[in-house]
């Protein structure tokens, strides 16, 4: 039945691929997040909107693309940037159509059958859970990388078809340029390079001896890397997000400081991600088998995301099915189209096994929950394998078409393609099974969470946060939506760097807008501070060490506060730069600015010896200038500390996240489920307080609301009875952001 593909059969169906991409885009738009989301989404949306610099390596190409997306004349800013993710993934799906069709042309002679198989590849790759879920909110830069992978894949396939053709050299030079350009979106851009090199080596090895071509490719690659120039130029203007501060300019841009050693050093530190201090590859953070197990854990998610573990058997069966189909597809690819296999096979290997080895992750946040006593990633890292799952889907589609062919041929003397086509319905299983979990339509909870926590802080207050989820959404709310810009957010993980405190000093003081703030703050006078949040100069700031070798308790005295800072209660056993700066800010602002610590930092106030001064007001804990005494309104709650009942009750009435969580009816990302837990905990403790104060109706209403949130987020098992001693959320820091954090003594 197999005949060599004719020229007509090899002609790509660009129109059909385009229509398929549009179909995928329609699916993504239907399930698109209207606003921001947890983890890095807010950081990247804010960076795009403000043309800022997100965390290293700074992703300049993404920022430029995101900024252009943010300029679109419809929808909200977050929606527009989310559309960028959707468009990139839809483009990738269209290209996977072309790649699959090209492979199928070698052994399927019926045109519509080839196209049906190609559509299957596009749909499967687009609806694999992680691809879909990352395509409906711009959480990371990985969908842009996926688009680059797909474009490079198609160009490589074209080159393999005709390595001596008229355009062959230009294709290779273009590929080199795109690999360089892709790197400026994310270092993963280089992951496609080994596959291209393998294809060239196998298909036409003498290409590597053509030095003029190689020189052109190297130049093109270097040209592709030039968007990194964006970073020092933009950083010199000190945008709100200026992570790594890759500039030597302190006040304004100038030629001398832009072309200075400091700029080069800081830029290279950003590009090389020095801040993260990744361990040596030989120093495995978990056994390689466990790291492969992590890939498999997330592979299971792709075909049926089961966030609450209620369909484990079905999920396992589907994972086995798609693993088998993918292997079959790989074998068929090898046997039928060796030319493109020598690209695609190494690509799958690189973005799967090689990436697992290179990333060297700890155990996944949700992986193998029965394994205890091991270090875990702070969140699930399935997004790092988005390219793996996307490419695997193409092979799974090829495997399914191979199965279809067997069934069709056995059904009659001539293949009965149409009669046996229902077998392709297997390829729609992820579309159906993942819809609820992958869709982010109507997700407003993160935006509301950001507003709620900012509104927990009195005008002109300082809010100390601990990680990603209690910081990035606040950046988004302030810088994109203009919410409560009067509040200064200071995150401890970044206070350990040298550049972040300098940025805090530069931050202007914004006027509090009483009409947009909570009712609890109306009708009072809020004097606007006139001095920066720290009295230290930039030079003094830079002189603060990474940590102080202090082993004995020290007394911190300021105004009415006498706090004993016991290093043994601090996370690292010694005060870090961040701890010193937090105390400095407290010292400089007592009586000037209200000082708060986010409740997501768990016991940070206590670890600084401030427990007797910590007053919970809504979602934040205010550091009182005098020791607190329990009374009717200030209630001492075991496990929580002092609670300002009237203020917290008033704030609770205006919080938007509980309704948003209940409307959504789920909280798929389990590592951040501490956020809804915080709302439930707050509601339950308020209910207790109301009950004690004889407001039984209100208590019942409050408790019901808290339980509704817990049920919607599937965390009711975290709350047994009306106890307030509940697990508080981890704010989730993606990585230690500090430079040279001390080893735990």
């Amino acid at each position: 039945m197999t005949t060599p593909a004719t020229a007509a059969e090899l002609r790509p169906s660009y129109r059909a691929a385009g229509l398929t991409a549009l179909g995928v885009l329609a699916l993504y738009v239907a399930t698109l997040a209207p606003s921001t989301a947890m983890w890095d989404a807010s950081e990247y949306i804010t960076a795009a909107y403000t043309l800022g610099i997100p965390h290293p390596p700074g992703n300049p190409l993404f920022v430029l693309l995101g900024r252009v997306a943010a300029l679109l004349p419809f929808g909200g800013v977050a929606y527009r940037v989310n559309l960028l993710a959707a468009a990139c993934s839809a483009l990738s799906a269209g290209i996977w159509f072309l790649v699959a069709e090209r492979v199928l042309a070698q052994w399927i002679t019926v045109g519509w059958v080839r196209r049906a198989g190609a559509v299957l590849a596009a749909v499967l790759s687009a609806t694999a859970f992680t691809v879909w879920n990352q395509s409906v909110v711009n959480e990371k830069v990985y969908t842009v990388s996926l688009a680059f992978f797909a474009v490079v894949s198609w160009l490589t396939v074209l080159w393999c078809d005709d390595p001596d053709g008229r355009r062959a050299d230009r294709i290779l030079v273009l590929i080199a340029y795109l690999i360089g350009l892709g790197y400026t979106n994310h270092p993963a851009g280089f992951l496609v390079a080994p596959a291209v090199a393998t294809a060239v080596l196998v298909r036409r090895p003498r290409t590597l001896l053509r030095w003029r071509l190689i020189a052109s490719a190297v130049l093109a690659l270097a040209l592709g890397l030039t968007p990194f120039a964006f970073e020092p130029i933009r950083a010199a203007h000190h945008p709100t997000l200026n992570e790594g501060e890759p500039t030597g300019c302190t006040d304004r841009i100038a030629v001398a400081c832009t072309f200075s050693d400091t700029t080069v050093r800081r830029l290279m530190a950003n590009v090389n991600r020095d801040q993260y201090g990744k361990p040596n590859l030989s120093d495995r953070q978990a056994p390689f088998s466990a790291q492969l197990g992590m890939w498999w854990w997330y592979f299971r998610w792709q075909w049926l995301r089961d966030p609450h573990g209620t369909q484990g058997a079905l999920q396992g069966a589907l994972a086995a099915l798609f693993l088998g189909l993918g292997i079959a597809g790989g074998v068929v690819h090898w046997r039928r189209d060796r030319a493109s296999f020598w690209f695609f096979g190494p690509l799958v290997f690189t973005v799967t096994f090689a990436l697992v080895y290179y990333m060297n992750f700890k155990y996944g946040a949700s992986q193998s929950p029965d394994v205890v006593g091991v270090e875990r990633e702070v969140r699930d890292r399935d997004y790092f394998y988005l390219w793996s799952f996307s490419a695997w889907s193409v092979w799974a589609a090829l495997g399914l078409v191979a199965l279809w062919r067997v069934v069709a041929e056995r059904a009659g003397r001539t293949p009965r393609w149409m009669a046996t086509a229902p077998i392709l319905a297997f390829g729609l299983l992820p579309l159906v099974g993942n819809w609820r979990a992958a869709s982010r339509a109507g997700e407003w909870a993160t935006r509301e969470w950001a507003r709620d926590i900012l509104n927990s802080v009195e005008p002109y207050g300082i809010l100390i946060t601990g990680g990603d989820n209690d910081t990035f959404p606040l950046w988004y709310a302030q810088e994109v939506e203009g919410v409560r810009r009067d509040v200064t957010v200071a995150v401890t993980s970044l206070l350990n760097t040298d550049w972040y405190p300098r940025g805090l000093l530069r931050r202007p003081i914004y006027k509090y807008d009483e009409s947009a703030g909570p009712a609890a703050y109306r009708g009072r006078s809020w004097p606007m501070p006139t001095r920066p949040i720290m009295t230290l100069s930039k030079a003094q700031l830079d002189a603060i060490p990474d940590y102080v070798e202090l082993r004995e308790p020290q007394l911190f005295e300021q105004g009415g506060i006498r706090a004993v800072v016991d290093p043994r209660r601090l996370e690292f056993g010694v005060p870090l730069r961040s701890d010193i700066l937090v105390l400095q800010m407290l010292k400089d602002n007592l009586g000037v600015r209200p000082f708060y610590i986010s409740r997501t930092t768990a016991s940070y106030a206590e670890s600084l010896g401030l427990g007797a001064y910590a007053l919970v007001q809504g979602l934040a804990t205010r550091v009182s200038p005098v020791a607190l005494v329990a009374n009717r309104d200030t209630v001492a709650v075991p496990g929580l500390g002092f609670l300002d009942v009237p203020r917290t009750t008033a704030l609770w009435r205006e919080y938007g996240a509980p309704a948003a969580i209940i409307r959504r009816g789920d909280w798929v990302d389990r590592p951040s489920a501490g956020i809804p837990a915080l709302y439930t905990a707050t509601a339950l403790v308020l209910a207790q307080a109301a009950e004690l104060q004889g407001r039984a109706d209100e208590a019942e209403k409050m408790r019901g609301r808290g339980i509704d949130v817990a049920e919607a987020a599937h965390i009711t098992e975290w709350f047994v009875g009306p106890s307030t001693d509940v697990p508080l959320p981890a704010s989730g820091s993606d990585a230690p952001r500090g430079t040279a954090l001390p080893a735990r003594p």
Partner: protein
Amino acid sequence: MPRTTHVAGPRAIAARVAAGTLIAIGYIDLARGGTVIAPVALVIGYVVLVPLALFAD
């Protein structure tokens, strides 16, 4: 089959000039603090015109 060195045609030259011009405009505007023209010019330059310049006859 050995090939001769590719000589850029008028379309490729036009695309190169346009790409270079737009990228230069983008960086100049960026250095001046621009946040609208700069990203648009740089994106068109890097993502559209340079690939066109490298691929065009």
